[in-house]
């Protein structure tokens, strides 16, 4: 009997990583490189050395799955205890969940879309290191979609608006804003996708798009969503690093890449920023216990960290701050008020509810927006309050004009005149197209042949593609059930909440 040899010591991490990732790459022998990677040249980006891509994480597949499993285990433990202890009753208020409805309807499907497209990059990028980074991110995004669904499904049996988010994402008017943005990115080439999603979305604006939901959760007693946020945090910082690595790699490869990338930054900053308008409305109006105002978050996370920190670094490569960034700064005192106005006007056709801000909330808004709120927005809310005191509720009895690019109703005002809606008009092939801002008009006119195809929800309703001509027809086609929508006061959610918190509460009924 031979004695088993003692096991060799494990390889050092760096060597192990090299063997398990880059070393598994091979050169094609019976097809050309162009056939194997058909999508990496037509965008005009030149890459001379794919090995110049450095991987800051040195993850291997086995280590990756081990870490992720640990994170999942911790998250699901929180979800179990939350469900068993009726944790939903400890929220700040049931109206808080409107933010989470917006999240699962608007953001979770984007995680899934990102999963799909990073899987495509994991196949079609030429270098083994970026392919592996894309693979990890693809699996991350799938995990995020799944864990978000599991986290938020805890609320589905007690509250409205959580039941048909996937169908809604494909159909409902306000969800066409995030959906069309991702469709735009996914139908672009692989390098533009990297700049749009990895850089503009995951790096430049992630603290304005994603983090506000998680901090909103922690302030408003939503343990599951907060735990999800923690569970995703280390992935997100990996995604941010990938975004930064991607842009620096491409800029270093060839000077001719610089103007192409500048164009994408100009486009995708504005596209992602416009979508973040929905988050602005959420932050300032939907959280019973607000975290910080949109304006403050914009100043801290965008003006200080990105314009003050990142762009001076990128200047070295010849990259300038995004075109139209001045317009975004100029409207920071207005954005959230104008967006919540849209949601308030149209929540009869949404899978969440809205409400005129209470006097207490109004005071908070006035303190956050000393230059604009009391002058411009409070008087309108006061009018709503008077109409409601007389038994009315103003909804917009019709359909809005939408921006051809961002697909948000055309509610934004001129940066130098907050009383005048900013209407921009372009003519292309004899047809008129309307955009909401200099940024969206510029995006349209740069690639009109792409944006003329936009599936604008309002025009689709008028073409008869959305279930029928009446509001109930369209709501049924959207998957919106009675009580998901409309005014929060007196809604089924508000009534259940009051009942559960009455002095002799009846046991929480399942919906």
């Amino acid at each position, binding site marked *: 009997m031979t004695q088993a040899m003692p096991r060799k010591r494990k390889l050092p991490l760096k060597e192990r990583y090299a063997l398990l990732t880059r070393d598994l790459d091979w050169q094609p022998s019976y097809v050309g490189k162009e056939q194997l990677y058909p999508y990496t040249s037509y965008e005009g980006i030149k890459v001379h050395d794919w090995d110049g891509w450095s991987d800051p994480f040195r993850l291997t597949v086995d280590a990756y799955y081990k870490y992720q499993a640990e994170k999942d285990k911790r998250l699901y433990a929180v979800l179990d205890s939350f469900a068993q202890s009726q944790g939903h009753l400890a929220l700040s208020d049931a109206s808080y969940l409107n933010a989470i409805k917006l999240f699962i309807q608007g953001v979770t499907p984007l995680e899934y879309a990102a999963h799909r497209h990073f899987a495509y990059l994991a196949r079609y990028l030429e270098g083994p290191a970026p392919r592996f980074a894309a693979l990890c991110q693809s699996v991350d995004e799938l995990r995020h979609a799944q864990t978000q669904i599991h986290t938020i499904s805890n609320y589905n049996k007690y509250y409205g608006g959580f039941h048909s988010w996937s169908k809604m994402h494909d159909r409902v008017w306000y969800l066409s804003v995030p959906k069309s943005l991702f469709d735009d990115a996914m139908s672009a080439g692989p390098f533009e996708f990297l700049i749009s999603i990895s850089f503009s979305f995951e790096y430049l604006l992630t603290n304005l798009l994603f983090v506000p939901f998680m901090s909103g959760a922690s302030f408003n007693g939503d343990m599951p969503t907060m735990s999800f946020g923690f569970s995703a945090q280390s992935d997100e910082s990996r995604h941010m690093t990938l975004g930064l690595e991607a842009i620096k790699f491409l800029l270093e490869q060839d000077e001719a890449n610089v103007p192409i990338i500048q164009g994408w930054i100009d486009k995708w900053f504005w596209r992602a920023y416009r979508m973040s308008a929905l988050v602005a409305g959420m932050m300032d109006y939907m959280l019973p216990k607000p975290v910080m105002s949109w304006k403050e978050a914009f100043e801290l996370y965008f003006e200080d960290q990105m314009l003050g920190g990142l762009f001076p670094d990128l200047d070295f490569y010849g990259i300038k701050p995004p075109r139209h960034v001045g317009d975004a700064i100029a409207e920071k005192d207005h954005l959230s008020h104008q967006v919540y106005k849209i949601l308030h006007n149209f929540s009869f056709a949404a899978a969440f509810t809205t409400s005129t801000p209470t006097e207490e909330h109004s005071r908070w808004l006035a303190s956050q927006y000393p230059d604009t709120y009391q002058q411009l927005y409070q008087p309108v809310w006061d009018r709503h309050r008077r109409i409601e005191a007389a038994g*009315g509720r*103003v909804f917009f009895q019709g359909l809005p004009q939408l921006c051809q690019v961002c697909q948000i109703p055309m509610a934004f005002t001129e940066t130098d005149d907050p009383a005048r809606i900013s209407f921009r008009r372009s003519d292309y092939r004899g047809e008129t197209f309307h955009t909401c801002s200099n940024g969206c008009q510029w995006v349209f006119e740069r690639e009109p042949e792409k944006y003329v195809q936009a599936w604008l929800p309002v025009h689709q309703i008028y073409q008869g593609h959305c279930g029928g001509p009446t509001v109930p027809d369209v709501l049924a086609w959207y998957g919106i059930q009675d009580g998901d929508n409309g005014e929060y006061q007196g809604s089924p959610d508000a009534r259940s909440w009051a009942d559960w918190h009455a002095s002799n509460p009846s046991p929480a009924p399942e919906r």
Partner: protein
Amino acid sequence: MPVKALYEYEFPSADRAELFGDDQLVYVHWDGNPLFCSAACFRVPQAMPFGEFVAQIVAPWAGSDPDFDPAAVRDWRLFDEPLAADDIRSLHDLGIGHKALLHFSA
């Protein structure tokens, strides 16, 4: 700058006039009324007389504002130009085409 693509990139517009037959889309904005977040979009026959358009299409929408007074509607504009509103003439005859933007004050 044309879209970068691996093939000839040529697609029809999703809202081209022909898809609406004898109808068209018209946008209406009530200038200076912040109760409404944006202009409204309507599908209407090109042959509809302007007076009927105002009474049957615009007024019910504008009536979401309890203070709306149909008699006070004035200063019609087509895009940025003043419009000589004429109740008898059709939208088409007044030069109000597909996806035109009208403004009024009240």
